[in-house]
């Protein structure tokens, strides 16, 4: 075995997993950096919420666009991707019982990502006003500062290196046979997230490098529509990394909190493969109301080719609660929803699963399916309904799931108890309630009132407005920021000041196969898995809500004058 003699492991007392000591520092540093960006992005969020609340209207146009750029990049890119790198290291090194393929490359990736992030953010904050603010999208031919683009490119190179470390670690585990048979589900999901990340970063590399060279006058400017198509490979693709990483986190949270095991590995893994095949077609959701593409192109891509990716999400939407239901039924909690009543609602990690999954599905999933439909998109394109949709998916969904993961990482790898489990649980519910209302207010303003997104002063526009909903957006934003601040405070202070937790015996490395799941065949398995009636009922209610909202959108569209 090609393992350094200095490498040491200890055994996690909760999961039984071997933890390679050398993996822990890069993993924790990436996670903590992510949380620092979450803090910064959260302060920006507060300023934005108090600006879109027109009665307060805190920022003028210049500062609004600067703060919007910093908020978008801190949250959608830096918080998410630094944390996802931590998840990739966990899903490879820790779950597969193998040291990272190269700790040095992991640090190189970190330095590149941090350097690129700081360069891009500082440029956006302090650039000359003769340059346009990039916001998230830096659509050509806006005049974007070359240092901003360079920062984005360096960050992407760093992320590429981190992906390389992940794939090399999985490959090393396979070569050294540190696990038996197929990859564990969490690693399987992480591999899919990493494949999507690879495709996304490729699109981003083309868009940014071309735009960067054009800014320097080395190549002709990129066609404006081509830029949108290629950029959205990155823009949408990165959100699909979040999706795959979040679904992976949900399976992991189910396992860590109630000992859940997916009912059918076959079904869950097939759904992940559908993501890998189809999800990036969703980049076209941003081009549905654009010139330059045919209707067949729109329909094929908008639907991820006959909704392959939506079927995948529906499958996970069943499989994850079903795994929890099965686990709780095995522990003796019966009845249609009795198992749900006996779930560990006071456990912050479980609360994060229980809050993020339904919010993602109901607010984010339903709006995603409707707004991503070719014709329905015309009603909401570039309105506040779109950020409403992705605040439901990326914040109420992914961010809350990652909060739960962060609490578990602090306990299992940081080896510290949370300062207060009660406050950590309260935090999840407060943040969830705040974000649910933020998303709802945005969706409502955009869908019913046509309120534009990315707009510094809608009160100047000749549009019908809703001051009440604007106030709701502002107030809910404040609640969410309070919940988010609680999370950051609890996470950082627990890591520094929490009561130390015992760790399992420290061993010199002796690679051993990870424990395989108990054989789920025979009468007991069939009996146990047969009763998933609670989950099926919940899913059918969800589908009913989806049908009503989807139909409402079509009826509303039919009231519009004729457009073709």
């Amino acid at each position, binding site marked *: 075995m090609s393992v350094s003699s200095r490498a040491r492991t200890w055994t996690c007392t909760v999961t039984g997993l071997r933890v390679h000591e050398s993996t822990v520092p890069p993993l924790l540093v990436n996670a903590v950096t992510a949380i620092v960006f979450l803090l910064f992005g959260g302060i920006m969020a507060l300023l934005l919420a108090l600006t879109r609340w027109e009665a307060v209207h805190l920022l003028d146009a210049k500062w609004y666009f600067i703060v919007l750029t910093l908020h978008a990049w801190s949250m959608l890119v830096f918080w998410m991707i630094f944390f996802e790198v931590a998840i990739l290291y966990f899903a490879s090194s820790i779950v597969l019982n193998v040291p990272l393929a190269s700790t040095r490359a992991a640090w190189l990736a970190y330095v590149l990502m941090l350097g690129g992030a700081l360069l891009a953010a500082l440029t956006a904050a302090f650039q000359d006003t003769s340059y346009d603010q990039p916001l998230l999208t830096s659509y050509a031919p806006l005049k974007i500062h070359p240092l901003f683009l360079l920062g984005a490119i360096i960050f992407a190179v760093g992320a590429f290196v981190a992906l390389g470390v992940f794939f090399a670690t999985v490959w090393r585990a396979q070569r050294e046979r540190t696990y038996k048979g197929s990859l564990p589900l969490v690693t399987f999901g992480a591999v899919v997230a990493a494949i999507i990340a690879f495709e996304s970063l490729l699109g981003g590399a083309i868009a940014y490098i071309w735009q960067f060279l054009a800014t320097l006058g080395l190549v002709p400017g990129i066609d404006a529509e081509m830029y949108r198509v290629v950029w959205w490979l990155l823009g949408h693709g990165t959100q699909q990394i979040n999706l795959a990483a979040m679904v992976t986190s949900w*399976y992991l949270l189910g396992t860590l909190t109630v000992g859940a095991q997916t009912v059918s590995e076959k079904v869950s893994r097939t759904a992940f493969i559908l993501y890998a095949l189809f999800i990036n077609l969703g980049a076209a959701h941003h081009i549905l109301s654009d010139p330059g593409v045919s209707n067949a192109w729109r329909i094929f891509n908008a639907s991820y080719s006959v909704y392959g990716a939506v079927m995948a999400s529906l499958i996970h939407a069943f499989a994850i609660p079903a795994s929890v239901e099965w686990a709780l039924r095995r522990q003796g909690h019966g009845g249609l929803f009795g198992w749900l009543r006996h779930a560990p609602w006071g456990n912050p990690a479980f609360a994060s699963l229980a809050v993020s999954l339904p919010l993602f599905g109901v607010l984010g999933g339903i709006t995603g399916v409707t707004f991503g439909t070719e*014709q329905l998109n015309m009603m909401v394109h570039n309105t506040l309904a779109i950020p409403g949709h992705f605040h439901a998916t990326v914040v109420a969904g992914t961010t809350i799931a990652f909060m739960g993961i962060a609490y578990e990482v602090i306990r299992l790898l940081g080896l510290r108890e949370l300062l207060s489990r009660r406050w950590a649980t309260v935090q999840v519910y407060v943040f969830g309630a705040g974000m649910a209302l933020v998303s709802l207010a945005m969706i409502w303003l955009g869908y019913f009132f046509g309120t534009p997104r990315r707009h510094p002063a809608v009160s100047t526009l000749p549009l019908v407005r809703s001051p009440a909903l604007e106030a709701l957006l502002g107030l809910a934003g404040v609640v969410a920021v309070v919940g988010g601040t609680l999370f950051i405070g609890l996470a950082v202070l627990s890591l520094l000041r929490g009561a130390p937790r015992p760790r399992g015996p420290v061993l010199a490395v002796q690679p051993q196969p990870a424990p395989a799941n108990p054989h789920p065949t025979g009468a007991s*398995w069939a009996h146990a898995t047969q009763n998933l009636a609670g989950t099926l009922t919940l899913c059918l209610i969800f589908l009913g809500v989806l049908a009503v909202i989807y139909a409402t959108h079509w009826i509303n569209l039919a009231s519009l004058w004729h457009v073709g």
Partner: protein
Amino acid sequence: MSIASPSERTWWEQPVAYHEKIWLVISVVTGVLLFFMMPFWHLFGHQNSSAESYRVNPQAFYQRVQDWAKTQRQTSQGLAPTGNEVYIVAYRFAWFPNPLVLKAGVEYRIHLSSRDVNHGFSLHRDGTTAQKVNFQVVPGYDYVLTMRFTEPGTYHLVCQEYCGLSHQIMVGKIIVEG
């Protein structure tokens, strides 16, 4: 457990639970229904995205619109096109021509493009929240939208894509006469 390898040699051999099978069928049916709504609406609906667009030089398009406007009827309310071809060009930070006077019940071919950066064409019928439509205005593309206004009234046009610091002043008006 999701952090351990499945016990079957290949995960494909794992059985599927009864309730999960039901949900799988429902998921597939849902996906297929969602898919067919889009071609269905192209065949039977009156509100569809347009697939007609042409590459243009942004400056040449701007000039074409200026020249076209000179040949149209200028009324006290705004520019009233005499034919069915209508041109609208967006630039930082205005729409041209503005205001525009159109007739209800007439099918127009609206040529839409930008002289400089991306803009957003967001048209709202005054006083209602239900009737509004949004399209992307992209420099280098003449996007042809076929529109027939079913009801007279005032329609407001706002820019809905970030185009620079004065983005918020970019508003226009279309008056639709009966």
